[in-house]
């Protein structure tokens, strides 16, 4: 794919003039496709998105043969933290822990995500803690932490329990959580008030059942993360108002898991794709979307799960996840439709600056 630079001086430094990018097609936040798209970036933000017409005067112009979209938002990643730092093993409940303090944006796996078109990551504490602490939203270039308290992780899966440390059972774990939320302070208080969404780490359907009951009892909002068959309880999830973060869907995934995703879509449950990078390859994010589309998910729904819906689950929908006016300028130039696996990333902009250019361009 060949891109012609009409104006000069478009390097890593922030352009002083607005940058107008023209692409053959654009993927919008709701999944619809815009033809003959112009996207204007100014001061690190998207100032306009429209179809047809000309570039604004005194703007630098970039003509791209291919598609343009907002950067992908990957939920539930571990990239940016050394593996051993994800979980404090001395205590299973650390309500005031914030993963933002463990982030190192210079780690190579963050750049790996950038190269796959992922511009922001929701980095979460490991799933094995009963109360893991607050996750954070990190940009994959520039090191900006968009949100230091994106959600509070609570463990509802069997992996949160070991037999040689209190609590050893679901019953006692739930009782502990209830106790903590009875007179909450700090992050727990925010969660109880509904200001901070909760990420319920689940694995099996019985975990989902328990999490739904707990969320209802404590009046918590947030998302269920990590159970591939959550969709089989889609009606109950819809009633609860919780969203869903899907576990990474890889090659060789059972059809049952893919059908569960379709059930979620059918019931209107909002969902996004989880990544678990660097444990899984960053390309798995789009692969998950492609597998769901192959199974029958509508393309625009798949796109929303990769971008705007994911940003909403991470609590940053005002700034990220949409190719729209006022959003931060995280855009990706693709060789083709980003939902097609045969398309590749040509260039990535983060906060209005060129952060990555594919080789050979």
């Amino acid at each position, binding site marked *: 794919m060949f891109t012609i630079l009409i104006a000069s001086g478009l390097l890593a430094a922030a352009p002083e003039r607005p940058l107008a990018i023209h692409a053959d097609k654009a993927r919008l936040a709701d999944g619809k496709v815009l033809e003959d798209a112009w996207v204007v970036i100014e001061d690190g933000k998207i100032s306009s998105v429209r179809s047809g017409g000309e570039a604004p005067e005194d703007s630098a112009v970039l003509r791209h043969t291919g598609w343009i979209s907002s950067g992908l938002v990957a939920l539930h990643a571990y990239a940016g933290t050394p*593996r*051993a730092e994800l979980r404090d*093993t001395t205590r299973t409940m650390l309500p005031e822990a914030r993963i933002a303090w463990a982030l190192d944006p210079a780690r190579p*796996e963050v750049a790996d995500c950038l190269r796959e078109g992922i511009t922001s990551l929701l980095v979460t504490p490991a799933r094995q803690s009963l109360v893991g602490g607050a996750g954070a939203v990190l940009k994959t270039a520039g090191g900006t932490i968009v949100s230091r308290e994106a959600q509070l992780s609570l463990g509802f899966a069997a992996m949160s329990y070991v037999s040689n440390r209190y609590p050893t059972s679901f019953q006692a774990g739930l009782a502990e959580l209830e106790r903590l939320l009875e007179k909450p302070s700090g992050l727990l208080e925010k969660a109880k008030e509904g200001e901070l969404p909760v990420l319920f780490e689940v694995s099996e359907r019985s975990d989902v059942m328990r999490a739904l009951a707990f969320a209802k009892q404590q009046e918590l909002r947030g998302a269920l993360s990590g159970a591939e068959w959550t969709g089989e309880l889609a009606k109950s999830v819809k009633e609860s108002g919780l969203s869903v973060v899907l576990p990474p869907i*890889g*090659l*060789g995934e059972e*059809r049952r898991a893919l059908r569960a995703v379709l059930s979620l879509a059918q019931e209107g449950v909002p969902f996004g794709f989880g990544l*678990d*990078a*660097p*444990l*899984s*390859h*960053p*390309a*798995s994010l789009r*692969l998950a979307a*492609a*597998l769901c*589309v*192959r199974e029958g998910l509508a*393309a625009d729904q798949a796109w929303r799960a990769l971008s705007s819906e994911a940003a909403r689950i991470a609590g940053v929908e005002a700034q990220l996840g949409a190719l729209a006016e006022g959003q931060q300028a995280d855009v990706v130039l693709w060789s083709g*439709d980003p*939902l*097609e*696996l*045969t*398309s*590749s990333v040509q260039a990535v902009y983060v906060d209005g600056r060129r952060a990555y250019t594919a080789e050979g361009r």
Partner: protein
Amino acid sequence: MTPSLPGLVLGLSASILSSACATAASPAKARPGGEQPATEVLFVRAERLIVRPGVELEGAQVVVRDGRIAAVGKDLAVPEGARELAAPYVCAAYLDPWGALGLAADARVDSATTAGTRAADGVDTYGNKELRLETLRAGVTCVRVQAGASARVSGLGAVLRVAPGLSPAEAILAAESALAMSVGLSANAPNQGPSFDFVDGQLVQRESSARGMDLFDRVGDIDRVVTAIEGGRSYLQSKIEHKHELAEWQKKITEKETELDKEFKKAKKDREKEEKDAKEKGKKFEEKKYKEDKRPQPPRYDEDNEVLGRVANGELPLVVQVHRTAELRGLLAATAKHDRLRLLVAGGSEAMNCSATLVERGVPVIVMPALVGEGAVDELDGADLTLAARLAKAGVEVLIGSGGGSAAASRDLPLLAQIAVGNGWTREAAFAALTVGAARALDVERSIGTVERGKSAELLLLEGEPLTNAGRVKYVISAGRVVLTPETK
């Protein structure tokens, strides 16, 4: 037992003939009580028909009869009683040249394989029905399997059809497709002690030792391959020589007999006279003895060398799984003098470093792209997504396979091909690699790989272009039968 022809030519032509028979597809006959219905006559209408990469027909039709493609063209007449199918795109079905579906599980992990081990003997055509249907739904109808996936010598591979419910005869497309070996795999590294990781403050034993081999082990592996090939070659040679010698010896015997025949009367008279003389003189009569040359012994039958001989001769291709630069270079150098050897490299993670030699020698590389994050343990896991594109750009013939480690992996092959295209490979090359390229490399291109008259009917009827999200599989035809429809669960 006098042979009528000189032995040398006979020996060679016999073996060529037998291997040709092995690779011919056997058309299906109706099996009463079997799962698959009898073959029917099919009439396929395509808005676009991809005959072979680069040759596309618009508004074309294909007639399938008795398991084979009977006609391809435009404006064909519908045969009587034919079942009619239509699709926007029709193309040849995919072949996974490095897979494991259809092989019994213990055959796959067998570590005691030798060159003579035949994967066709370990085929399990039953079971795994759901997996087979999913693989068909992905577009893969044939898979080459090897026993002993990570063994040093895996034996003779077979090309199998994926569809469930086929008889063993139909399921095996080619009983002897290629010999496979491996060089430098960590799994075969000798003296492997357990190795450990420090995880969460605790020592955890790794599942496989990723230490790889040291220089001497590697050289040893390459030597093993070369020695085996040379052994096969000399075995073949001694077989041919034996035939030659046998013929000579027979000739001599015949000549001697004719000679004796001629002088029979005189010899008889002489013998009677001698007998009489001996009797008179009182001596003991001794028969004149004629010494025969000893009959030349054939070389002792060696099953492994039989196969290796055919490989050395170029009748069977040799697939060698090798990843690292040093081993690959060593292998290419050591086999340079075997000009008849047909080599294929499987894996080739670092093949870019030898790309010039690979191009020069015409060695194709079967890449195994994989989506692995930090979980990569040894060279089998960390396959690079851009490898196909880079090798292709350097001029190497690139094929794509699923790695032979798991039966389920063949299903994901077309998706991996798409991802490789997303990483720089061209879609045309990917499509060719999955169809005609793989078929040619494995000597089955007379049966599969393109939509041409006479070949076995292995077809995909797609809703869109192959290797795109829109290109969903509608129908799959394998061995001339419709093995997958949109209604199939």
